[in-house]
């Protein structure tokens, strides 16, 4: 029933490849899924729609996705009249730096957690898990006061330091889970060939863990890239903002600039969403890596 009767393709769309469901049930399932997809996608399309509106008609009660006299006016404004590119640059520089630091810290520690039964290992793992429960809002209070004391407000150093460490516990869990699945025989064989413990780590474990390392890097990246609360307390000068802060000021409490906000959102979201959809299978396997023991 696969490809031989392509003529009634509409009918086939609903009938083929299903084992037991009746055609009516299949129709209902497709209808429900289409409605759910609409709910999932429509708000995103609305952002696109508002960003394309001409400057004098930003507020309108029309529901059309592509407005009648679509223009790129808002995109022009956000790029040339707002410090949007500076926000993006700040975010990018901070995020990449911190994701790398986090990755390096986590990859070596996870190896220790995976291969040695040193004193303090189980409490350490439990502690790492507990840190995942700490609300960001709770950590932000003392960090703000300490940052004021150490004059780290309005500098990238404090922010970058905070980001590099905050996802290390989670990364250690994921990487430990992955290292655990690599057979020890490989290392023993290398040791017989005269490699040192660190040599086996660099030449065998790390290359074998590339998928997990990539996932951890991506997690660190996303975490810092999307963070609002830490940046909010650390950065107060508009030119130093990261993009979440910048976008928030556009749509925030005080003055709402819909055109600029939506255009900026699209410019940020499109690459992120492409990256995300492309790597989502990976990311999901990463979420379960740490919890399922091989």
């Amino acid at each position, binding site marked *: 029933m696969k490809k031989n009767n392509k003529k009634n393709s509409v009918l086939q769309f609903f009938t083929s*490849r*299903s084992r037991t469901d009746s055609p009516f049930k*299949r129709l209902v*399932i*497709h209808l429900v899924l289409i409605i*759910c*997809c609409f709910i*999932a996608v429509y*708000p*995103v399309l*609305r952002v696109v729609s*508002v960003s394309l509106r001409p400057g004098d008609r930003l507020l309108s*009660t029309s*529901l059309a996705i592509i407005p009648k006299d679509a223009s790129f006016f808002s995109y022009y404004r956000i*790029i040339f009249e*707002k410090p949007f*590119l500076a926000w993006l*640059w*700040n975010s990018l*520089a901070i995020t990449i*730096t911190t994701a790398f*630091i986090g990755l390096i810290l*986590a990859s070596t*520690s996870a190896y*220790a*957690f995976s*291969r*040695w039964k040193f004193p303090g290992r189980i409490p350490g793992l439990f502690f790492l898990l507990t840190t995942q*429960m700490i*609300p*960001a*809002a*709770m*950590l*932000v*209070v*003392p*960090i*703000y*006061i300490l940052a*004021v004391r150490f004059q780290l407000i309005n*500098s*990238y*150093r404090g922010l970058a*330091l*905070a980001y590099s*460490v*905050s996802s*290390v516990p989670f990364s*250690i869990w994921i990487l430990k889970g992955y290292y655990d699945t690599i057979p020890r025989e490989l290392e023993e064989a290398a040791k017989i060939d005269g490699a040192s413990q660190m040599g086996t780590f660099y030449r065998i474990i790390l290359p074998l863990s590339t998928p997990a390392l990539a996932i951890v890097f991506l997690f660190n990246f996303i975490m810092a890239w999307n963070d609002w*609360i830490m940046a909010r307390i650390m950065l107060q000068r508009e030119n130093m903002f990261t993009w*979440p802060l910048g*976008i928030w000021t556009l*749509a925030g409490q005080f003055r*709402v600039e819909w055109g600029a*906000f939506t255009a900026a959102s699209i410019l*940020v979201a499109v690459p992120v969403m492409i990256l*995300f*959809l492309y790597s989502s299978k990976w990311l999901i396997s990463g979420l379960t890596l740490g919890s*399922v023991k091989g």
Partner: protein
Amino acid sequence: MEALNFEVIKDTLGQLGGMLLYILLGIILLEIFIYVILGKIFKSKYTLPYMLMIAAIFGISLLIIYPISYEIRLAFTNMSLRHFRTYTLSWAQGLKNLKLIFTEPILKNVKFFSLLSRTLLWTGVNVVFHLAGGLGLALLLNRPMRGRGIYRALLVFPWAIPQIIAVLAWKGEFHFEYGFVNIMLRNLGMQPIQWMISPFWNFVAACITNIWLGIPFMMIIILGGLQSIPLEFYDAAEIDGASRWNQFRTITLPLLKPVLTPAIVLGIIWTFNNFNVPYMINANELESTDILVTGLFRAAFEYHRYGFSAAFAMVIFIVLFVIASVYIRMTHGLKEAYE
């Protein structure tokens, strides 16, 4: 191009590069220190693992443990914007903070117990809808059919879009006049809703936003679990004449448990700690969408009561810890993870 110029680029790179240099230097010093102390003086066989971990241990101590201990100390002070440097530190002040939390309003009007019950309601409603929606969609998708990949890709949109953007966009769409929610309600002939003025509807708006955001994650996790259940189980059950509902109850649910338990724990913690949604959707002067964590942030950074907020943070953490450990104890959820 107002701001992205050579100066900005140089400044960012300079700051980050300097920081990297210091970090590198610090790590080298730490490694030598550990090597000498453990390796040479104590001759410990665990020198290498501790050398591997020392950088992370130091970083976590500096940026998680030290701030938390500092916060515990803060909880016993009356530090505020007025007493930023001239605060008093005493046991009595700590008790006073604790008493203030339970008796006085945390923000302008809202008190601790209404914040707590609202947080529990918020967590419950969201997690239940996430689970129901995610399970429903995963069951619908877990069958051979046309267009599955497309449905899946479209359904994860809310998860893929950066949260801040989604939340701020939703906030705009709850506008009384120009938001699509009310426009649709009007087109359907219903009364538009005062999302930003009515306390009840403001809370509902935050729930709608968060449910929309959270369903795809659950769906994907559950779908992964469903796909690992061998089809033979269902064939066998069919032969035994089990109904669809019985198959779901006796095969699907028990076999999904290893996937569901951590997903629910994560879901509860994330929802309880969710800051962006309640904070951004919030029509602030109402204080009707504030949950514990947004109350904490606003008490600290809008009312500038740092000592009080630190004490409040301790209370919140205890509440969260109790909830999570009760759930973990109930389900033995993390047993395998320790080996």
